[in-house]
């Protein structure tokens, strides 16, 4: 297959272009799911559990059903009776006792037991939202409150209430990786040993658009259409159909504009199934709009893993081995996604960019009376990279080495590529030292002391942090399929099962198509969000470009090749003599030609259609070095980011402005975790204390804007046709440890020394104030 790359046009890959998504969005003509309404539409509202753990004794909906405008009220018992299946799937890892991974069954509506505050208990459908809300207030649910536990370490120790009988210790499953004996030996001969205790706190992804589901019966068929804000249309189709005992083909999922996803809108939710069930039962459209309160209560949370991590080094600072013991809080119902993220995906990158072969990882997934965990930007990699960078930071401080120097002594060298890490993951390429040196220069690492003195004059503490890291991408699904339609109206439609959610993937795909077709950018239409037209894994794990884009490239090239044969027929020449250039096929050496769209119009079905798939050979391994400086006000404990620089290796870049937006926007989310975000459940009552933006602090406009962000494109990925590496999660993964170690550095320099490593995220003002004023620190999470 010859590569049919046109001369890189103004709008082809590598160029910064205006996004094709933008004109509608800036004019307020976006089509977010709540912007759509259908005739005869009903509104659904959920009554959610006020208790963290309780038996449901009875549900009395009589009064509610009699209220004006109420169409139906459903309880968990109703759904059981109707044969609606729970959503839980078998877990891929066993319990410590060798029995299969355990979880209580997560139902569409809770039945007999509720296991977290906000779990949906009753669904009310009414003609208007107000009528539904009023009726929900009239539903009488009788609960018997049970003791609850919200802390994972507490949950697995004896005496805590058990969430399901198969797991009396609340352990869903457990994994060990590596070679414990080898690590013990490494520690025995180590010249230096360091340990850190780490809290990677629970987060709420908080996309600005809350979830919305609009389910309706398709006219003329028995199918149900589920229109919703989601990153994974096919997963919703399969989850809904599976739960409702329907053939997947009987559900059509449609997704239009999505106001942010960040992993929180992956998979299939109970509300998705409930809306479809209600639409099917009532034969009317049913719309549910999540309130922000419900987003905090009942949309997947991220992270929430605590660790005790240790590292052994030789006299030169070469890491000999590492050992990490982690306990992950996966929430009230353990899901495949939730446990894989912490027990497998994170471990895949634990050793990161460092040449470390001896690891001993022990990870336990524990259930508690909290919202179930799922993917949140990075999904396992931020947690693992944070642990690794905190260990490096501690070791550098212990050995009194420049943190970049310690890293330098441990970075995998280009000559070691391809490199197999101790989790059998193979990195194809990477020049981590080169990236680090560029970032250190960009961040003027060497000039820190002068800035430190300046901060001191202004009575501020100053610290710097550096992270070198890589990450794993693909979502473990390496194939995407794309269909190309050349249409007589003059457009090229490209249909993909990946999903736009703000990341600009449509523009990137269009640029890849322009590379091949050589037509103007506005001739390309990217079609996503319709399971009748395309099915696949969807968008997660930073895969849409290097996997999905690879398929766009291959399908576009295949289309040209196929069209050449059609052109040959049309021009009565041999295919070998057909040339293609910027929308026209011509016979070499003649002026006989036909336009691409004219050719399409002349076909029997008035279009040219080609399907193709592409498979990336492996995950891509984007990597970077991030450098940051902070100032800490010792009087209040407040932290300000004052400098941030990064050099990122994402291989070939298709859309320069877009990828920069991904890194910077992702970095601000990472900063949010470092400084201010935390989901908090009350230890005694299990009540959610952070249920709005009044209490959950995401960054505002004044957080920091001076990012110096560069991309080194000299190290393309060798395992996919684009040579590209994923970028969507890279900034988030890098920012958190970089900012945290900078704050630790600031306090260490202020006299706390290694005690500063006892700080935990979020680095809220009071914690820093207590550390400085009173030498008080949060307790280590693992006893």
């Amino acid at each position, binding site marked *: 297959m010859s590569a049919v790359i046109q001369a890189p046009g103004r709008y082809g890959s590598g160029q910064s272009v205006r996004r094709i998504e933008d004109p509608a969005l800036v004019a307020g003509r976006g089509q977010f799911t709540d912007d759509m309404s259908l005739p005869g539409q009903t509104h659904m509202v959920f009554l959610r559990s006020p208790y963290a753990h309780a038996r449901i004794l009875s549900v009395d909906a009589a009064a509610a059903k009699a209220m004006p405008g109420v169409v139906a009220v459903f309880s968990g018992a109703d759904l059981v009776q109707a044969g609606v299946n729970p959503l839980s799937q078998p877990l891929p890892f066993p319990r410590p006792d060798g029995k299969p991974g355990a979880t209580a069954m997560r139902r569409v509506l809770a039945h007999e037991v509720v296991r977290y505050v906000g779990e949906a208990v009753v669904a009310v459908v009414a003609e208007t939202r107000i009528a539904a809300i009023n009726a929900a207030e009239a539903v009488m649910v009788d609960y018997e409150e049970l003791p609850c536990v919200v802390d994972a370490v507490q949950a697995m120790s004896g005496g805590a209430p058990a969430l399901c009988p198969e797991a009396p210790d609340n352990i869903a499953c457990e994994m060990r990786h590596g070679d414990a004996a080898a690590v013990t030996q490494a520690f025995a001969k180590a010249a230096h040993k360091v340990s850190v205790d780490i809290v990677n706190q629970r987060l709420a992804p908080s996309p600005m658009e809350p979830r919305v589901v609009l389910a309706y019966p398709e006219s003329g068929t028995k199918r149900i259409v589920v229109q919703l804000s989601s990153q994974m249309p096919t997963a919703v189709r399969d989850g809904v159909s599976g739960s409702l005992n329907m053939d997947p083909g009987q559900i059509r999922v449609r997704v239009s504009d999505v106001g942010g996803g960040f992993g929180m809108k992956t998979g299939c939710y109970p509300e998705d199934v409930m809306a479809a069930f209600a639409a099917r039962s009532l034969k009317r459209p049913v719309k549910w709009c999540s309130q922000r309160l419900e987003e905090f209560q009942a949309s997947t949370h991220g992270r929430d893993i605590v660790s005790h991590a240790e590292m052994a080094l030789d006299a030169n600072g070469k890491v000999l081995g590492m050992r990490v013991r982690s306990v992950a809080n996966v929430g009230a119902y353990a899901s495949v996604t939730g446990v894989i993220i912490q027990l497998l995906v994170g471990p895949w990158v634990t050793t990161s960019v460092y040449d470390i072969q001896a690891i001993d990882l022990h990870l336990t997934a524990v259930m508690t009376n909290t919202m179930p965990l799922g993917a949140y930007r990075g999904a396992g990699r931020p947690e693992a990279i944070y642990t690794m960078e905190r260990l490096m930071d501690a070791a550098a401080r212990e050995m009194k080495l420049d943190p970049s120097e310690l890293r330098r002594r441990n970075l995998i060298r280009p000559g070691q590529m391809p490199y197999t890490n101790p989790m059998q993951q193979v990195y194809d390429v990477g020049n981590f030292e080169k990236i680090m040196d560029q970032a250190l220069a960009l961040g003027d690492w060497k000039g820190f002391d002068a800035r430190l003195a300046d901060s001191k004059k202004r009575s501020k503490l100053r610290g710097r942090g550096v992270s070198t890291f890589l990450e794993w991408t693909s979502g473990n699904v390496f194939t995407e399929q794309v269909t190309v339609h050349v249409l007589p109206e003059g457009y090229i439609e490209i249909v993909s099962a990946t999903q736009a959610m703000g990341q600009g993937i449509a523009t990137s795909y269009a640029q890849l198509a322009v590379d091949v077709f050589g037509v103007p950018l506005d001739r390309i239409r990217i079609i996503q969000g319709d399971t009748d037209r395309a099915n696949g894994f969807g968008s997660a794990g930073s895969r849409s470009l290097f996997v999905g884009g690879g398929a766009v490239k291959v399908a576009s090239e295949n289309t040209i090749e196929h069209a050449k044969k059609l052109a040959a027929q049309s021009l009565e020449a041999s295919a070998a003599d057909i040339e293609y250039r910027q929308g026209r096929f011509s016979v070499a050496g003649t002026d006989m030609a036909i336009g691409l769209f004219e050719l399409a119009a002349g076909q029997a079905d008035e279009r040219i259609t080609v399907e193709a798939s592409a498979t990336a050979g492996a995950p891509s391994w984007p990597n970077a070095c991030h450098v940051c400086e902070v100032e800490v006000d010792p*009087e209040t404990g407040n932290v300000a980011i004052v400098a941030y620089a990064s050099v990122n290796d994402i291989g070939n870049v298709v859309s320069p402005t877009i990828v920069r937006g991904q890194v910077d926007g992702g970095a601000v989310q990472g900063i949010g975790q470092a400084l201010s975000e935390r989901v908090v459940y009350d230890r005694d009552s299990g009540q959610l204390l952070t249920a709005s933006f009044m209490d959950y602090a995401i960054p505002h406009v004044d957080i920091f804007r001076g990012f110096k962000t560069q991309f080194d494109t000299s190290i393309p990925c060798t395992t996919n046709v684009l040579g590209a590496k994923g970028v969507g999660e890279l900034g988030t993964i890098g920012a958190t440890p970089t900012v945290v170690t900078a704050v630790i550095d600031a306090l260490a320099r202020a006299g706390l020394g290694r005690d500063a490593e006892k700080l935990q995220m979020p680095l809220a003002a*009071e914690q820093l104030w207590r550390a400085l004023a009173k030498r008080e620190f949060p307790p280590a999470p693992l006893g």
Partner: protein
Amino acid sequence: MYSFDYQRPGSQADAVRAAQGEARYLAGGQSLVQAMKLRLASPERMVDLGGLAELRGIKQDGANLVIGAMCTHAAVASSAEVRRAIPALAELAEGIGDPMVRNMGTLGGSIANADPAADYPAALVGLGATVQTDRRSIPAEAFFTGLYETALEPGELVISVSFPKPQRAAYSKLRQPASRFALVGVFVCQGANGVRVAVTGAGSSVFRQNAMEDALAKNFAPESLAQVSVPTDNLNGDIHGSATYRAAMIKLMAQKAVASAAARAGEKK
């Protein structure tokens, strides 16, 4: 929210008449509409004061500045009168909430709501202001009586607040990082009635800090507060800040406010 009857009177007298029974006055709505959305408040009748231009004035009255109850925070922040007479008050107003809140939120609405973390209560108590209602005058310290509680009787309408012009004053606030309300806010004033220090955000309601006032009366400088310790009794403690932290920040914000106030040129009366 629950449904209600709605009236929009054209005069103050009509407003007071309309507010008999289970009615609430609607000023800017920034607190009340929010509470109603969350179904924490459910009046049967709303009396919208939006049409009462007579409540939107700012005027001098001898040694006082009188601000109408329906003046928005934005209007107070940008008023040349306020900037000239009590710059600390204009600065406080421009730090309330965000621009959209300031365009709708009003002085009267804010004090009637008496949020424990609102900024205005600290200014009223700090300046020794007097709240003028349709039926009486209430000194600020008697006005704020508890958590979301005021001395207002049912149907009583706040008309204006009369602020004595200080010699010098300032407000310093430490923001709760999520809501950006005051975790601790301290208003310090040196005026005709001596020194006053009013604290918001830290307790169930605004309170004066007498030990600080005594120290500052002797010497109006931040150093005077170095030896003052702030007790933690009755201070709020929550996930954003313990009582211990708030006590320390009360002291710090007071010192900052004193430094700002002391740096001001003498006030014009």
